């Protein structure tokens, strides 16, 4: 079981308290009626799915119920960092010491 740090509650808590909510930092289109079919496809369906550091949303559903973001290594499942929603995407090189 994963232990996840909620940046609002500031506690490490078991995975069962949290709901995964997909890839993070995917911005909703500012002007939806201007989008082409390809742009809709990219927004709705195309995902990074990296073998490496993944930026993702979690929700502390059985706690404070708030959304936050996490950077997690998808091979080891190790969390590198969790941060509040709205904060900018952290620099991967700084987190892992490896340029990507």
């Amino acid at each position, binding site marked *: *079981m*994963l232990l996840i740090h909620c940046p609002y509650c500031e506690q490490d808590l078991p*995975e*069962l308290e949290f*709901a*995964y909510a997909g*890839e993070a930092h995917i911005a909703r289109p500012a002007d939806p009626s201007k989008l082409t*079919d*390809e742009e*809709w*496809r*990219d927004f*709705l*369906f*195309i*995902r990074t*799915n*990296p*073998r490496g550091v*993944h930026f*993702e949303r979690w929700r502390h559903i059985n706690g404070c119920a708030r959304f936050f973001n996490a950077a*997690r290594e*998808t*091979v*080891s*499942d190790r969390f590198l960092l969790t941060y509040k929603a709205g904060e900018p995407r952290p620099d991967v090189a700084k987190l892992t010491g490896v340029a990507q």
Partner: protein
Amino acid sequence: MTHFSLAQVIKGALSGQKNWTPQWPDAEPKASYDVIIVGAGGHGLGAAYYLAKEHGITNVAVIEKGWLGGGNTGRNTTIIRSNYLYDESARLYDHALDLWENLSQDLNYNVMYSKRGVMMLAHNVHDVQSSQRHVHSNRLNGVDNSWLTAKEAKAFCPPLDISPSARYPVLGAALQRRAGTARHDAVAWGYARAAAARGVDIIQNCPVSAIRRGPDGRVTGVETAKGFIAAKKVAVSAAGHTSVVMETAGVRLPLESYPLQALVSEPIKPIFPCVVMSNSVHAYISQSDKGELVIGSGTDQYVSYSQRGGLPLIEHTLAAICEIFPIFRRMRMLRKWGGIVDVTPDRSAILGKTPVPGLYVNCGWGTGGFKATPGAAHTLAHTVARDEPHPINAPFTLERFTTGRLIDEAAAAAVAH
């Protein structure tokens, strides 16, 4: 290659089983091939076999990062069925089922296909209504499926608890009698042996690091741990790692990779005659020929390449199994494992051409690729050989995520794959 027959078995017995030879050679790569298939699972090996057998293309290599059949082919719960709701899916999976029927004879290798029946339980009124609709729809599509009352279900599968006081009461079940199981490793081995006999090179322990394209955009070959190998056509059939490989050719896919877990009990005497699935409580179970109860769990909620998965899912699955089959409450579990499955937004596969000339993809089988093995392999071979899809896999394009013509099987069927 030794042709297996009763005479060979008797000869083997009389000679102390000492004269069996390796079933296929472990090849070293040549400088170039007509077709390279990335991923030596059942789908990839099968595609190589059908390329050689049906299309006369034998200058083929199947390249595998680990060992043959060591990915999801060796990690699934071996269940075969074709009772899918939508026309497109019904045709594809029923095509696979037709090929399963004679696969052992075709390959001259016993894949132990056992038509023991797959039974899907209905626990409430909604389940009954949607299952019956499913049965009718399947029958209209020519797909075998039938409806059983609770008593008939109990007669078909005696360990089932159908008492009204059960935590998950059984109100009836849909039964596909033609469905069943097969020995997963034997499928990979049988295809490998039959493909190698027709001249296909199987290259193991050779990760593909990149797909190379020429100035005109066309595929030129693959970079591997054993150097560059040129190819006129490349087909990627790498399950959970497909997005990583395809990214190197500049193709981004609508895929996410999740761990899917399964577990087996200690081996016991034959007790469980069929496969039982319960989609509402998410559990499914069968018994292997070795005697282990084979239990399928679910996918973890997060993207991962860890091939492990978390224990809470196993606990949840076993809780459901113990409620539906109280007889198994004191069974001990022997081991659990995970495989990485590639899931598409509509839970249907992507099998066809890509925007890159000469590059083909077979992916997105999610949690249910094993049952499709011969059908996927057969239609992938057709697509690669003719550079156009077989009518059966034609709807399973990558373009459907642009046009919106999805095959939304998960929403339609609400079933585990």
